[in-house]
């Protein structure tokens, strides 16, 4: 029990395994910060967690409107969890727009805490409620949820009346008041957040007075929970039994950044990351730009084409060249990626998938760029494709991308998505020494009989010869090359040989790819095969289906091209293979074409992750068939 708890608990205590709580309000209400703080505190209490942030597409849409709503969901638990939760068990709504946009996602019987001061006529109208209707007066709402109406605006103002701050600044503290209530409700300590407020406002922004009012609002909320006796129950979520080690919270974006830097340092190289801003990939360049002291160069290029081509130029000259983007940007990079395939230079292409087609729903998630990554270039133009499966996994797969790119001298396309890039989870900080070095041997002036397109028989890769080395001067280019010399060649047989060689080289990467692991029975009724960001939903659904007595296993691909060598064997061990994807069936096509297995798709294209319960239902209906 935290030392902030000043009196004995007068209320009932309930122990829970997992709770998903959603904070929502206007973009200006600081919901991302609030949710982030709740997560940090829960992390430090030893809970497992997973988060999901839902940004509006508008920068700052008019206050109080539906499209200005910002949301943050965190699930925290005393067991292993893999998703931020389908439905929220609790919700905090700072305004009617937040309430309206999110109430459908709260489970029946869930806790709903609202800032009742904001449910004014004007605000109700702004978010589109019919004139005269107020959900806080709606009986159906009352009977469906456990509603708590708190005058957060007034209470915050009152508790900070003496602070000497202006009304605007005071109003900005309402989110901390709300957070205080929630901390009390779920029995969390206030220290982490107090420390954060003092560090951020007090030191970084040099505004200690802002720090202090925020802390006071936070405490006021907490004490309100304790004293007001509005909440009949208080909940406890014990620490999770995670694998021992030192943990931190990490978002997918952060993990990509750290993974790239780690891979590059393991290769004793510098990173040149060129990118053009695009949601949701921009956070990668934002993160890397802060790491110049790690030998990281970042270039904000004039467009995606310039970015990929600059990365290729950097690779030619000896850097690890990388570029990052989202869907429409990947389309623009396709010609450049083809150049890297022909030049046989290492290149890393991060693609944080978002909902399309075209501009589509740019802030929403989807995993529909797999076939573009496989085939979106003229002619036979193979790349290695990897896909991280969770926020923390973004780290490992980024290291893997660097490793594969330099080992096979070819582009590696890295398919993250908005859901895991913006999500966060606990991350056991890896032992750096346990990550094997990435060895690169550039030819030197002492290299005998150097030929630019001679191949290593084991990897089929050519050697990475970089400018500045006397005696190895040579030219490479985008026309078909002669095996060995790399000279331009129009010879028909040579062309076929090179086309097949480039394809074989990419397939060779299967030599060093971890075999696919199965969770659940190693053979039987049904396998759920997933890839990328759906890992959390599919794994949880699989676990739940097994608990419900179904003979269902799950397996998750992190390598899409080439596939792990044991994939076919795994698939053939089940009577039925279902492939849940946030697209119309892209991995499905690849699997069916390659193995002629009558796999079926479970598809959803709604700009959001699968809900575990929906997945469970859909799988059950397949089993019944």
């Amino acid at each position, binding site marked *: 029990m935290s030392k902030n708890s000043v009196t004995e608990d007068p209320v009932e205590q309930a122990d829970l395994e997992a709770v998903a709580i959603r904070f929502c309000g206007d973009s200006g209400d600081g919901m991302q910060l609030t949710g982030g703080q709740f997560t940090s505190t829960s992390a430090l209490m030893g809970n497992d967690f997973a988060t999901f942030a839902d940004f509006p597409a508008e920068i700052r849409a008019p206050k109080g409107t539906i499209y200005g709503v910002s949301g943050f969901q965190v699930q925290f638990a005393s067991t292993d969890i893999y998703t931020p939760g389908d439905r929220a068990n609790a919700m905090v709504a700072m305004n009617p727009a937040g309430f309206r946009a999110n109430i459908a996602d709260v489970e029946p019987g869930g806790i709903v805490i609202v800032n009742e001061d904001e449910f004014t006529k004007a605000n109700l109208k702004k978010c589109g409620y019919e004139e005269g209707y107020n959900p806080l007066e709606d009986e159906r709402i009352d009977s469906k949820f456990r509603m708590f109406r708190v005058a957060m605006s007034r209470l915050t103002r009152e508790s900070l009346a003496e602070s000497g701050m202006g009304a605007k600044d005071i109003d900005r503290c309402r989110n901390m008041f709300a957070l205080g209530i929630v901390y009390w409700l779920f029995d969390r300590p206030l220290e982490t957040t107090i420390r954060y407020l003092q560090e951020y406002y007090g030191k970084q922004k040099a505004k200690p007075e802002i720090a202090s009012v925020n802390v006071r609002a936070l405490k006021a909320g907490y004490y309100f929970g304790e004293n007001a006796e509005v909440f009949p129950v208080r909940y406890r979520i014990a620490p999770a039994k995670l694998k021992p080690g*030192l943990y931190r919270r990490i978002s997918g974006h952060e993990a990509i950044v750290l993974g790239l830097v*780690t891979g590059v340092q393991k290769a004793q190289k510098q990173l*040149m990351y060129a990118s053009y801003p695009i949601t949701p990939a921009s956070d990668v360049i934002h993160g890397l730009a802060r790491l*110049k002291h790690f030998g990281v160069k970042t270039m904000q290029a004039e467009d995606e084409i310039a970015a990929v*081509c600059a990365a290729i130029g950097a690779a030619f000259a000896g850097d690890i060249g990388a570029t990052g983007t989202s869907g429409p940007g990947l389309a623009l990079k396709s010609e450049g990626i083809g150049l890297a395939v022909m030049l046989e230079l290492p290149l890393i292409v991060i693609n944080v998938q978002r909902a399309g087609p075209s501009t589509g729903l740019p802030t929403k998630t989807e995993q529909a760029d797999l076939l573009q990554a496989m085939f979106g270039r003229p002619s036979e133009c193979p790349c290695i494709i990897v896909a991280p499966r969770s926020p923390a996994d973004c780290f490992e797969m980024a290291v893997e991308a660097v490793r594969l790119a330099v080992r096979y001298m070819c582009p590696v396309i890295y398919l993250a998505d908005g859901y895991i890039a913006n999500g966060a989870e606990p991350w056991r900080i890896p032992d750096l020494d346990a990550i094997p070095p990435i060895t690169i041997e550039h030819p030197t002036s002492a290299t005998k009989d150097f030929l630019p397109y001679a191949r290593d028989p084991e990897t089929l890769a050519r050697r990475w010869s970089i400018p500045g080395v006397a005696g190895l001067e040579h030219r*490479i280019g985008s026309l078909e090359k002669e095996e060995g010399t790399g000279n331009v060649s129009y010879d028909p047989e040579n062309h076929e040989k090179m086309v097949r060689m480039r394809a074989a080289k990419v397939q060779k990467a299967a030599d060093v790819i971890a075999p696919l692991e199965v969770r659940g029975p190693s053979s039987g009724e049904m396998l759920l095969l997933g890839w990328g960001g759906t890992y959390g939903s599919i794994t949880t659904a699989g676990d739940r289906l097994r608990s419900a007595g179904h003979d269902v296993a799950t397996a998750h691909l992190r390598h899409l091209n080439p596939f792990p060598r044991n994939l076919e064997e795994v698939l053939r061990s089940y009577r039925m293979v279902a492939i849940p994807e946030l697209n119309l069936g892209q991995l499905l096509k690849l699997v069916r074409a390659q193995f002629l297995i009558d796999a079926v798709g479970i598809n959803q294209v709604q700009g959001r992750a699968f809900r575990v319960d929906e997945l469970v239902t859909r799988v059950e209906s397949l089993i019944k068939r």
Partner: protein
Amino acid sequence: MSAPTTPLPTYKAKDFASDQDVRWCPGCGDYAVLATVRKTLPKLNHRKEDYVFVSGIGCAARFPYYVDTYGLHSIHGRALSVATGVKLANPALEVCVVCGDGDLLSIGGNHTIHTLRRNVDITILLLNNKIYGLTKGQYSPTSEFGKVTKSTPMGSLDFPLNPLAIAIGAGCTFVARTIDIDSPHLGAVYQRGMEHTGTAFIEVYQNCNIFNHQAWFYASQKETRADSTILVEHGKPLIFGKDRDKGIRRRGGRFEVVQLGNGVSEDDLVVHDETDRGHAFTLSQMCHPEFPEPLGVLHADPERPTYDRLVHDQMAQAIEQKGRGSLHDLLHDAETWEVS
């Protein structure tokens, strides 16, 4: 890179000839440019292995194959982006981009203006033949209005781009023009461009012997050359003509051609000032046949730092401020908790 202690070898032009057969058409102006480049490289203060020639796609873009240095023949329009990447990875390399007018000004136009504004330390040879050579003769962005080509049988309808005006407008720090047939001039301008710290943009009037044979006759043929072009030199008045009897005078904001004598003397003429960007722009607007066309260095601003240098300086500064990054610390740079 070779150890800094070894002295620079003395190179000859033929040291820069690769083993590949040169495959341009007979009479193509690219041959002359290649010969001059091979002749000029030995005069520069760099090792052979430190040169990188980068190009896009087009006849001109075959250039790197023929120079025995490192080379990268990329894709159409993207040479400057590739070159920027090369310089960011290793600013010690001496990068030269050779491309055609379609490559740099049509599909690659955006990279051109952005590379110029960044002032990446490279030298650009724009081999301008006012036509698409490799794709067999469509008009290019520098072709004159009304040009009859395969894609414009009734004459083209877009007004030509002025490469120098675009370069100056984009804030380029070295803007020059020269011509394939004048090897000494081309060599001298190329050498200055290579020695310039920053982006050097050099337009070369280049003869496409097959698809646009007479395009530059006015500037290349003995009879017309002296009256159709003007050699600009910093600090010197703008004089031209076979008999050096004509000059350029300022009237208000504009330039005009005047006949020397009859009360008009050299002192009345505009004096070329490389450092004045507005002046360079006005020069760039002098077009045949109304004006003689300027050859030489129109604008040079050696002061502005280069993008590649700034990027590396910023890295150094970051290290100075924060120390060389420790991966261990970076991974731990967040609230952590122990699970046991």
